[in-house]
């Protein structure tokens, strides 16, 4: 396989790129200072005084960022300089938003910010552990099939636990808490897809028949795509988790397309997901009701305003500039998801359209940095892994933000970094650790010219 013919055109220069670590440090300073100001803002708005925990919070966030930065400097010196600051900023703002909602006496779960802070620290710890111990992302390639098994186990686990709020996506361990294995499965299954597609991509790409101007895959190559389709449908049916199945299927189609460079796969993917969506929407009442709410967002049920409507009112009331942090009424949304699924409504109401656009652009930037990492990566496994992780992140952002703003039907997923929820924040830190690792490898100065052609041959990456 001639790897470097496609990967090494413009994005890799042999001369050694600047490491950009100082850029990262400067941006990190903003990423810490902005949430601290936001924190002060909430305190002033709610109680008229600076919050007591402000110094501690600022120091804590600063410390996490500093440690992360130092370790990145040491272990991934050429990593992308934007990813860590943006993750820190989003995580910090998320903590402020959750703390702000903690100030409302009746928004469940009560007092969620300290827990979220702890999970964020665990997330950063995992992020650092990945950077320190995963010296090269290609090591993950060895675990392709183990990853598949692990992912299936993780995805299947929630079926054996009781449903929470209509969706079986939780594993509840009494006394410890609950976990959303889907968030971790997202990463692990990307590893599997990347490894699998790297091996099979030639077969998938080349052995096809031309029909009506498009290349149709062979029947036997349709096997895996159909298997994934069936799996996502199963998740949907048994766990009533619309978001996760959309996420996996979408991610698989994206990676398949990148691996094979065949547009026909996208066509198949769209057809299959449309068929699946229609099938499930007509047979599953949970999904059907979500679709109904989406089509009638302001409808009242028995004279009561629905959560969906409350979310729309929150966004609308925010207007252009928002009410200011701590001065909105997103608690009217009620229910148990104000701090998690609906956290964007608080952003929309209190920071306004301006704040929403800023947050969405931060996510957009993060996604594009991920895809840029894929472009820069020198090995196909790294490319596939990076685009898979970025694509999954993009789909998740779109599905959550689109669901909350009623662009698409609402699904039970959380906004990465912003929303309250331990599994999500930990998994996303790990996700970006892997991306940083790939980008470090990609931007690292090319190895010194090999002394002899024989030696160079051995450097070509093979699966």
């Amino acid at each position: 396989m001639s790897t470097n013919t496609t990967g090494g055109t413009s994005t890799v220069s042999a001369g050694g790129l600047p490491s950009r670590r100082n850029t990262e440090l400067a941006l990190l300073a903003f990423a810490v200072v902005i949430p601290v100001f936001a924190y002060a803002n909430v305190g002033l708005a709610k109680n008229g005084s600076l919050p007591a925990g402000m110094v501690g919070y600022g120091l804590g966030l600063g410390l996490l960022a500093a440690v992360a930065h130092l370790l990145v400097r040491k272990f991934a010196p050429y990593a992308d300089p934007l990813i860590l600051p943006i993750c820190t900023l989003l995580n910090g703002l998320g903590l402020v938003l959750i703390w702000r909602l903690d100030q409302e006496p009746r928004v469940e779960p009560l007092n969620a910010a300290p827990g979220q802070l702890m999970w964020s620290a665990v997330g950063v710890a995992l992020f650092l552990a990945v950077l320190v111990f995963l010296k090269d992302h290609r090591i993950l390639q060895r675990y392709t099939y183990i990853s598949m098994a692990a992912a299936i186990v993780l995805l299947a686990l929630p079926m054996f636990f009781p449903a929470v709020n209509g969706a079986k996506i939780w594993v509840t361990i009494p006394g410890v808490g609950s976990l959303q294995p889907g968030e971790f499965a997202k990463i692990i299954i990307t590893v599997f897809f990347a490894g699998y597609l790297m091996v099979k991509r030639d077969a998938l790409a080349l052995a096809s028949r031309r029909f009506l101007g498009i290349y149709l895959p062979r029947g036997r190559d349709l096997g895996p795509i159909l298997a994934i389709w069936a799996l996502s449908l199963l998740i949907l049916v048994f766990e009533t988790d619309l978001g996760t199945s959309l996420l996996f299927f979408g991610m698989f189609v994206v990676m398949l397309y990148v691996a094979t460079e065949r547009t026909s796969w996208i066509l198949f993917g769209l057809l299959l997901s449309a068929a699946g969506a229609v099938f499930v929407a007509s047979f599953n009442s949970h999904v059907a009701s979500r679709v109904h709410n989406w089509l009638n967002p302001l409808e009242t049920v028995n004279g009561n305003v629905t959560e969906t409507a409350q979310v729309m009112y929150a966004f609308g009331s925010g207007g252009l500039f928002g009410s200011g942090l701590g001065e909105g009424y997103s608690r009217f949304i009620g229910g148990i998801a104000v701090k998690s699924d609906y956290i964007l409504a608080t952003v929309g109401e209190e920071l306004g359209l301006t704040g929403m656009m800023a947050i969405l652009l931060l996510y957009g930037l993060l996604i594009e940095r991920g895809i840029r990492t894929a472009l820069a990566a020198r090995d196909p496994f790294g490319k596939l892994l990076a685009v898979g992780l970025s694509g999954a992140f993009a789909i998740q952002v779109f599905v959550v933000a689109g669901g909350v703003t009623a662009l698409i039907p609402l699904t039970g997923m959380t906004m990465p970094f912003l929303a309250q929820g331990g599994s999500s924040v930990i998994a996303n830190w790990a996700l970006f650790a892997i991306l940083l690792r790939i980008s470090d490898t990609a931007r690292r100065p090319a190895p010194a010219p090999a002394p002899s052609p024989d030696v160079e041959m051995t450097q070509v990456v093979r699966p």
Partner: protein
Amino acid sequence: MNKPLRRIAVFCGILIMALLVRVNWVQFVQADELQSDDRNRRVAVERYAHPRGDIIVEGKAVTGSTETDGSDYQYKRTHKNGPVWAPVTGRASQAFGTSMLEGVYDEFLTGTDDRLFFNRTIDMLTGKPMEGGNVVTTLNAEAQRAAFEGLGDKKGAVAAIDPQTGAILALASTPSYDPSAIAGNSKEDEKKWVALNDDPDKPMLNRALRETYPPGSTFKVVTAAAALESGRYDIDKPSGIEDPYQLPQSTDTLSNYGSPPCDDATLKVALQYSCNATFAGISHELGNEKMIEVAEKFGYNTEHFVPIRSAESVYPEDNQPQNAQAGIGQASNRATPLQMAMVTAAIANDGKLMKPYMVDRLEGPRSVVEQTEPEELGQPLSATNAGKLQDMMENVVENGTGTNGRLDGVTVGGKTGTAQRGVDNSESPYAWFISYAMTDGGSPVAVAVVVEDSNAQRDEISGGGLAAPIAKDVMRAVLDGRS
């Protein structure tokens, strides 16, 4: 692999762009609609975030605002002498909406009215909280109190008008309620609200404006006006109508209890003794169409907005015996107390009917925003005939059934009424009294009083006995206030 990667990058960009377009749509294009949606609780929060403007009577506010705690709604309505003023102010409840003046001028009192736009802009620029405007009424505090206290624990209503301008001076309705008690949104308020709604006596019904009663003998002044206007009858000319009067197309006859001198009576005598025969006969002779025409000139068959909506009083199209009965305020003839006050006022104002109103002006935080000017509704009868009718009504008070309405040193004209209820008068009747006081400078007050029923004995229920003293006190209060 880079070509598909770039396409994926574009695709992800499109996803983010779609989100950006969507939030712009929701938070910019749809924002106004969502912000002002009635079901958006923030609308109510904003509405109660500052003290509401007040309703003013004679320079003093009869309403107020108080700060609450433990609620999203910061300020709540309070009332001074709530039950006295409830038919005027109505309620402004956080949970149960608004009514009466609070309802009509809701936006003005809240401060969101377009007429306050300039003030709002200045408040916004200077950083002051939004301020509501005040509604200044025409009511007379003493007259209102006299009316309310006169009705006491009886069910009934009083409407008093300044005949020369149409300004409403008193508007009482009993049993009443205290709007303060249902102004909040607590459990306590809700209990009270449910109790008020379940009360068979309907305390929240504004009987002066929204309830119609058979006007009984008080309607005879309208029939008398029609008779005078027709030219076929006159104050001292024998009517040529026999007593007892045989109803057209019927074997039933009409007469009066105690056989007063009603046979072939003049209009003056007929009104003095409230002769059923004479006025039923006149109504029949003039015909249904003519009677409707005159009644409508006095304000019948249409809703009035004072600016609170008042129910339509009805003089219906009907057959001959029913029309004869309607001419003495029975059958399907129904009138609101306000309507009968308007009839009295028109007669007292030399035949000119003024449009009734109860809001003198709307005051913004910085200036008067709207001033009501008296307006003429029409001339139901000529000044000459009005003068004759005044003679007749003053005679009723001097020598007839309305002697309880007399006031020392002031000329009073009036008419009693006792409207029958139920089949064969089986329920206790409505006691009516309409009257006006006359001074050298014209008439300052016209009153209509109705008392629905009471625990008193049937034969004691007559307009003169129950209703006239209340009318007298209201007129006295207005006259005392002028001197």
